[in-house]
């Protein structure tokens, strides 16, 4: 199982990267629970997580709805950045932006 900060590299046969495993682990949801919620077999969730199966648009939206996230936050054609890097990278960037005007003023 992937840890929360790991990069999703599950390209598989589908050509899609996804964060289903990460999101499931983060929320403590089993494959069966997710499968029941979106109406598929739990094996299919495994195939999705490994990137061996590209979901239909309907299933992708159902998964997005279930996690309360937009589809592009769960599926991508390019590798996802690790969540830690996204969260801390973004906060560091915004902190740097906040300090930028002060430095300009000081000049």
């Amino acid at each position: 199982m992937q840890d929360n900060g790991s990069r999703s590299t599950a390209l598989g046969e589908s050509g899609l990267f996804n964060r289903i495993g990460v999101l499931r682990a983060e929320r403590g949801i089993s494959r069966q629970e997710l499968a029941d919620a979106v109406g598929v077999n739990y094996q299919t969730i495994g195939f999705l997580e490994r990137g061996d199966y590209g979901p239909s648009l309907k299933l992708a939206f159902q998964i997005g709805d279930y996690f309360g996230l937009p589809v592009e936050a769960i599926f991508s054609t390019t590798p996802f950045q690790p969540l830690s890097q996204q969260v801390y990278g973004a906060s560091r960037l915004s902190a740097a932006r906040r300090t930028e005007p002060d430095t300009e003023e000081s000049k």
Partner: protein
Amino acid sequence: MRAELVLMGKRINMTSRRRRRSLVVAVYAAMTAIAVAGWMIDRWHSTGSWLIWVALASCWLFFGGHYSRGLVKQFNGKGPRNADAMPNYLQLLFGVYRLPPDESEYRNDERELRERDRAHYQAYQGLGLGLAVLWLPALWLVSKPQWLAHTSFQLDQAVYGMIVVCFLLYTTLPQAILLWTEPDMEEDG
């Protein structure tokens, strides 16, 4: 695909691909043995129908696909007959009713439907080739060429045999491909 095979009330774990492949090999070996025996007995004149029954029985018991039993879920996605039936008053009173099966037990999801279609495509590509090969002896059977009259080769028997084999493969091959190719099933994690 189902993870368990129910045989005479016993549940056999079939999550491993190796087991499923062994089952496919065993079923086809048994069918081949029966076919060879039938050919030696009477060139399948009466034993040909046995083979058809054997193929249907192997689907019913092991492979599934055409029936609500077996490892592969029913191709048409229909549930068993009692799936939507509500128990009547007497059944409720005496508690002798069976709960309807979970829909995921018999309905294929979108990935399973895709795999089903792929397996049929692969199986019928091969069968199409078989039918193309069958066309030539069938043509000779109709036109009766002179050179064939001088040989002891029984063309009608060969054509009949090939039709029986095609029927056996039509009945069982898509399920066999599915059982052969699907990877090991994972535990729910």
